[in-house]
């Protein structure tokens, strides 16, 4: 019998626990025998497991019920004044507490089953609140609160190079603040630091592995000697890199990831000394990392990178980006004991500033954890807050239901008390019921949170570390307790109050069923619930408006019907600029020859491309012949490169002058094309056409002005940008674009083939369409908005049931009054109006409070809103209108019932 044919272990364990000891072994063995002999042989394994579960549950139910019956039977005998008591009295007494609890549970279950509507509403309400809160907290917990999986993560600090001149600039500040280190800076830092216990740099490079196994592109980490030691990661086998193995004389040694070790070396324990061929060079294996080791690069533009590396090699391999000079490295350090981040910053600042006075460069130090979660903490905490509001709404609903029930049951309680039931016992009975309800709600909440958490992860918004999110049991417990406590508090309070007084007035009152007090509190709770709902609705509405505004923005080019693919040419085989230009010239022609392609071009700075910031550097330039002001910052702009006809292919309007043509070759005069923003910012009213610009050591002439194109997001401002002709400034990584007739997706395979027809060994990545790139750029906003809308709609549903419940209750309690009013000549419409007015008042009070609260609370949202004020009157008006409509719909049906009261019946009952 194979291991996979085993019975479901969980079901078996549960069954084992619930069977009486005497019958346990026999019953389970019988079941197993049937399962193996008859079920597994006729049904599929899956069906067989279902069968086992069903049988186990049926057995558990049977024994649970029979046990309860048995105890209840004992208990009755104990209560009855017959001689039976003396026979079994001692045994019965020792069990009496458990028995009475079991009896309470049994009674509670029966009582809840008798009121299916109440039970269902309470359970669903609690479940929704608990589910939403737990899901959101799980995300917050997993992404923000759980420590990084490194040793002592609180001491890890990211170290960046900062250009002091640009610190704090809204757009370029971020760019210049998070500059990568070069090797000499790292060496200076490493040799001089006293505030760090150990320091390291790391980077990432895509390489092709050929041996052992099939050729494949892999993400390979570049590490300085101290990296693993700094992170506190201990290799599973072998060692990390030794001092002297990195840097200019980097050795060809490699540390494997656990997964590469398993897939390509079959988890060979004697792997040390074997070789891995990367980009044609043999690297000798010196170590294997433990599973789960990750380190993401955090340079701008790659926030969703998970940090999985197939292998690690020492930095300084000459083949990679031409060796050390060109390497972009991220610094990471472990603070020495007792050193604060400020002390470390002061030291590193001074080190990076060097001899220059005033200094131009400094250090940016950020705790690694904050750096990894970056800008995600505020939106996540906001959503958690929204989920919390939803939980509060749910608690309001439960409180209201419980209060309504408690008031309604005064009569029952009074009678039971009058018949001699002890008050603590009655209270315990009600308590048991509330707890049962709470447990059912929590169970549903747990299910929803479980589904919600997996949904959250599978939707895959670009949030780092989201894949490590699991349902948080702590929060589930917290939220469940909150739900149960609310139920108990509000369910018990009226009965406890009543229990203290004497039964007389209530008994007398019970006949006429005049209920006061409770209903007023209920109305207050409904108002509160509506207020909370209004806050959520406003937040959801504002985000939706903002999202709509973002997607209404023109990206600046004609996005539909454009396909794009990225080709990172290997520098090892395309060494010179002429090689690169020749390759892309050929590729452009081959792509244009593909049937269905209207025109083709390429750029190193693809708008909405996933690595826009990485591939589009910011350049400082001087306009030749213009006096530069002393205190003025030197002009700067983003620099892209373009193949001929880029702007025409993308549909970017050429506003003045011309775009690039085939004539802008390597030997032609140096030209550049600037965007509208650059023209306006740096030339104001003059015409830039014909102006000469100094970039580095060369001078370039402006030949054209093109329209602004959004760079990374529709809602992100356009910055000054210029393009150089690719032939005059060749770059190895180019994104090719092709305008097609009809759906560009259909042509993607042919486009890839066209590239490979020039060179079958170049990688082709990021194959996509411009439309979906633009759509992905808004996924953060969309995700936030979606969640907020889900929360607010859920709150509306809860509020609706709340209004319905309280109105129905009010009407039921006022049956007598209605009857008398009708007997006195009140019209049906008048009665309906009276009820509607009552609940409308409650709703308006709640809405007013909610809108004022929203005005204050949504200030927290302002940083996520695009072209919408937090006090947007349209949103507030819509929310108010929606809530009034919800109120009218929810209270109309109970009001109708009020008007159908038969006055004769009511008066007869008097």
């Amino acid at each position, binding site marked *: 019998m194979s291991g996979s044919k085993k019975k479901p272990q969980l079901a078996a364990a549960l069954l084992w626990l619930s069977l009486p000891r005497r019958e346990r072994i026999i019953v389970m063995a*019988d079941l197993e025998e049937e399962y193996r002999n008859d079920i597994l042989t006729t049904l599929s394994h899956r069906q067989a497991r279902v069968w086992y579960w069903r049988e186990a549950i049926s057995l558990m139910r*049977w024994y649970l019920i029979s046990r309860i019956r048995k105890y209840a039977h004992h208990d009755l005998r104990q209560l009855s004044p017959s001689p039976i008591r003396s026979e079994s009295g001692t045994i019965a007494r020792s069990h009496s507490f458990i028995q009475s609890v079991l009896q309470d549970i049994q009674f509670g279950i029966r009582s809840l089953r008798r009121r299916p509507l109440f039970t269902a509403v309470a359970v669903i309400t609690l479940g929704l609140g608990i589910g939403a809160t737990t899901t959101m907290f799980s995300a917050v917990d997993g992404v923000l609160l759980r420590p990084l999986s490194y040793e002592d993560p609180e001491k890890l600090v990211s170290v960046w190079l900062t250009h002091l001149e640009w610190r704090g600039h809204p757009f370029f500040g971020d760019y210049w603040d998070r500059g990568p280190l070069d090797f000499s800076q790292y060496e200076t830092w490493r040799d001089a630091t006293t505030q760090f216990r150990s320091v390291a740099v790391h980077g990432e490079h895509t390489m092709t592995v050929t041996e052992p196994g099939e050729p494949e592109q892999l993400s390979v980490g570049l590490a300085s000697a101290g990296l693993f030691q700094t992170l506190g990661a201990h290799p599973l086998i072998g060692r990390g890199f030794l001092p002297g193995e990195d840097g200019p004389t980097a050795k060809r040694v490699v540390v494997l990831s656990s997964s590469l070790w398993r897939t390509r070396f079959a988890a060979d324990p004697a792997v040390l000394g074997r070789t891995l061929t990367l980009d044609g060079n043999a690297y000798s294996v010196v170590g294997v990392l433990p599973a789960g080791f990750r380190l993401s690069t955090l340079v701008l533009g790659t926030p969703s990178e998970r940090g999985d590396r197939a292998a690690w090699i020492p930095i300084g391999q000459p083949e990679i980006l031409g060796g050390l000079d060109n390497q972009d490295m991220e610094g990471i350090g472990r603070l020495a004991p007792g050193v604060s981040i400020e002390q470390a910053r002061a030291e590193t600042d001074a080190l990076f500033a060097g001899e220059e006075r005033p200094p131009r460069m400094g250090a940016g130090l950020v705790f690694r954890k904050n750096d990894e979660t970056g800008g995600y903490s505020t939106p996540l905490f906001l959503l958690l807050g929204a989920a919390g509001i939803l939980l509060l709404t749910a608690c309001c609903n439960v409180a209201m239901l419980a209060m309504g029930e408690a008031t309604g049951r005064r009569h029952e309680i009074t009678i039971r008390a009058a018949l001699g039931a002890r008050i603590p016992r009655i209270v315990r009975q009600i308590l048991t019921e509330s707890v049962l309800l709470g447990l059912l709600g929590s169970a549903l909440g747990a299910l929803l949170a479980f589904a919600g958490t997996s949904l959250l992860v599978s939707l895959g918004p670009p949030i780092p570390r989201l894949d490590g999110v699991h349902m948080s049991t702590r929060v589930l417990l917290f939220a469940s307790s909150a739900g149960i406590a609310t139920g108990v508090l509000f369910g018990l309070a009226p009965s406890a109050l009543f229990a203290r007084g004497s039964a007389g007035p209530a008994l007398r009152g019970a006949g006429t069923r005049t209920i006061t007090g409770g209903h007023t509190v209920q109305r207050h709770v409904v108002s509160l619930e509506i207020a909370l709902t209004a806050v959520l609705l406003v937040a959801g509405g504002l985000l939706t408006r903002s999202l709509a505004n973002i997607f209404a923005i023109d990206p600046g080019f004609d996005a539909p019907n454009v396909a794009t693919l990225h080709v990172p040419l290997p520098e090892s085989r395309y060494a010179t600029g002429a090689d690169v230009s020749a390759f892309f010239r050929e590729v452009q022609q081959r792509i244009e020859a593909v049937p269905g392609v209207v025109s083709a071009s390429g750029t190193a700075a693809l708008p909405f491309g996933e690595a826009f910031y990485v591939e589009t550097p910011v350049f400082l330039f001087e306009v030749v012949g213009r006096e530069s002001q002393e205190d003025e910052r030197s002009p700067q702009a983003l620099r892209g490169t373009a193949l001929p006809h880029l702007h025409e292919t993308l549909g970017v309007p050429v506003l003045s002058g011309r775009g690039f043509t085939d004539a802008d070759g390597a030997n032609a005069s140096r030209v550049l094309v600037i965007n509208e923003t650059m023209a306006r910012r740096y030339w104001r009213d003059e015409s830039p056409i014909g102006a000469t610009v100094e970039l580095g050591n060369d001078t370039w002439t402006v030949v054209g002005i093109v329209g602004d194109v959004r760079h990374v997001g529709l809602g992100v401002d356009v910055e000054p940008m210029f393009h150089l002709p690719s032939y005059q400034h060749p770059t190895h990584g180019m994104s090719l674009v092709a305008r097609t007739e009809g759906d560009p997706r259909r042509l993607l395979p042919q486009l890839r083939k066209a590239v490979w027809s020039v060179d079958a060994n170049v990688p082709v990545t990021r194959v996509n369409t411009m439309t979906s790139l633009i759509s992905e750029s808004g996924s953060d906003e969309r995700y936030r908005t979606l969640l907020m809308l889900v929360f607010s709609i859920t709150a509306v549903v809860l509020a609706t049931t709340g209004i319905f419940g309280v109105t129905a209750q009010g009407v039921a309690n006022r049956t007598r009054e209605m009857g008398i009013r009708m007997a006195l000549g009140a019209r049906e419409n008048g009665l309906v109006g009276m009820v509607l007015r009552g609940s409308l008042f409650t709703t308006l009070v709640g809405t007013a409070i909610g809108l004022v609260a929203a005005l204050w609370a949504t200030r927290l949202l302002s940083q996520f809103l695009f072209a919408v004020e937090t006090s947007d009157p349209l949103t507030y008006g819509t929310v108010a209108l929606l809530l009034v409509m919800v109120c009218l719909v929810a209270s109309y049906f109970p009001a109708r019932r009020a008007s159908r009261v038969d006055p004769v019946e009511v008066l007869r009952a008097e």
Partner: protein
Amino acid sequence: MGGQAPVGEFEQLVLLAVMQIGDGAYGVPVRREIERRTGRDVSRGAVYTTLDRLEGKGLLGSWLGEPTPERSGKAKRFYRVERAGIKALKESRTALRSMWTGLEPVLGEL
């Protein structure tokens, strides 16, 4: 009545099933026998509780059999009807028969 509490309908079914099976009557075949002959769905729990109760009343006797691999090495509990069980069955039949007598025109032969 012979001082013995009368057996219920389901108890009768279980006793009869044990007798019908003869050698090798334990939980699984007992349930199957009742389901096969009566066409009813029988709850597993009910069979075990009833077997246990009948044994407690002294109507059934039981012993443990050899462990087998398909039961993960656990033994079976085999049952046989004791003399008291047969007596109880006979009494039930007598009671039923006398109650039926005279109603044959309406209900048909027993």
